């Protein structure tokens, strides 16, 4: 390992040593991976460009490093969409399993609020039916560990665990099959809960959240999650844990405020958008790149969408619908387009 720390410092006098120390500090703005790979090289270039006796980084060079490191962090890890999608394919099932675990660890008295039946359908990969005919759902009034005795919940969790295990084992086809089966089972469960009123007013939502489900399918179809196992870092784990916690906390807050007769319906919309913004910002802050950030927002956005639908039917006038539908719809269309293009390019033969 030729890490940045092992690089010998040329004995060139105090001024150079001072300048080098300052440049090294600036280079810490780059990701650790980049520093290990190119740190000494960039330092060499910076030192070569320096004047004799210079002790402080030139302002232009310093600004350029700040800008360059920021852009590189926004760009995220190497490999572009292929690695972002592979990571997404690996992480998304983990997000679902974590959400399930959080769901069970919640005290039962918290979960007595209405909406629990809907809530465990908000868990993204298998969302096919949850928004059908809001308001017609039989309330389950079960929560916490009580959920474990509910067959619907167990089927849902089982599906998520199988998908996650298959993805981590690198069994792409098994994961795809489990994903499809879980979606069908969940949809059937929902259809049963809604007395088979599957063409109710929530059909558009079904299509849209189905788009996110498709995003995982596309990711699995295009990118190999086995490749992502090498790329996945602690920061990905932190992101997925925080997002799952945020989604759960938010949905409980939504339930709690639904209990109070004077809860402002707008609050769901606002907090839903805040949640989506967090999902967008968190991966960026952690340097996972804008592509991964877009995918993570695509996962969390439908949760906002879902609760908004369940609790605020009166608000569903046309502009609200457009605001809710447009971003996930764009992501879905774009990912479909990208998938097709990627397939075409790969057929033509990718470089190196």
């Amino acid at each position: 390992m030729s890490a940045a720390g092992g690089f010998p410092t040329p004995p060139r006098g105090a001024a150079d040593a001072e300048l080098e120390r300052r440049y090294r500090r600036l280079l810490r703005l780059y990701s650790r991976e980049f520093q290990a790979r190119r740190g000494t090289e960039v330092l060499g270039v910076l030192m070569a460009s320096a004047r004799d006796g210079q002790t402080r980084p030139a302002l232009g060079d310093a600004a350029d490093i700040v800008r360059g490191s920021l852009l590189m962090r926004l760009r995220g890890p190497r490999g572009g969409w292929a690695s972002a999608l592979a990571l997404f394919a690996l992480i998304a099932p983990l997000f679902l399993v974590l959400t399930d675990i959080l769901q069970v660890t919640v005290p039962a008295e918290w979960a007595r609020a209405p909406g629990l039946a809907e809530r465990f359908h908000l868990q993204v990969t298998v969302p096919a039916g949850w928004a059908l005919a809001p308001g017609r759902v039989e309330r389950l009034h079960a929560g916490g560990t009580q959920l474990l005795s509910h067959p619907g919940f167990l089927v849902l969790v089982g599906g998520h665990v199988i998908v996650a295990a298959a993805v981590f084992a690198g069994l792409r086809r098994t994961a795809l099959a489990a994903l499809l089966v879980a979606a069908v089972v969940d949809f059937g469960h929902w259809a049963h809960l809604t007395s088979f009123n599957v063409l109710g007013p929530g059909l558009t939502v079904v299509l849209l959240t189905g788009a996110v489900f498709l995003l995982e399918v596309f990711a699995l179809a295009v990118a190999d999650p086995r490749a992502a196992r090498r790329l996945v870092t602690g920061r990905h784990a932190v992101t997925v844990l925080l997002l799952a916690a945020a989604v759960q906390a938010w949905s409980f807050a939504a339930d709690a405020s639904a209990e109070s007769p004077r809860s402002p319906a707008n609050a769901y919309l606002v907090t839903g958008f805040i949640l989506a913004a967090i999902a967008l910002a968190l991966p960026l802050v952690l340097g996972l790149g804008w592509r991964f950030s877009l995918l993570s927002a695509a996962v969390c956005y439908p949760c906002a969408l879902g609760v908004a639908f369940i609790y605020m039917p009166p608000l569903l006038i046309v502009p609200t619908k457009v605001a809710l539908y447009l971003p996930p719809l764009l992501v879905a269309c774009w990912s479909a387009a990208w998938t097709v293009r990627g397939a075409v390019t790969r057929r033509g033969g990718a470089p190196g």
Partner: protein
Amino acid sequence: MQETTFLILTALAEGPQHGYGIIQDVGRISDSRVTLRAGTLYGALERLDDDGLIGVDREEIVDRRLRRYYRLTDEGSARLAEEAGRLQTSAAIALRRLGAPRPGLAGGAA
């Protein structure tokens, strides 16, 4: 293609160069109009490497500092040639329209 990218590829078109060499060469090629700095250079090198347009040629230790030499890949050469041709065509049209009353004079026959 951005001008910086074009200049870096042009710098590598003559043969492999290391980072500082590219900076100096880009200064020469652009007649000192473009000052390439390390942050910009390495952002571009990362992107070009990801896109398969350049690759690492060799590494040397000079003056106890690591020097990594980069070279154009075949795809990089092709892309640069394509871009240069495009720029030449546009420039020829611009010059012809500016300098000659009738088309076809400045560009020469065929």
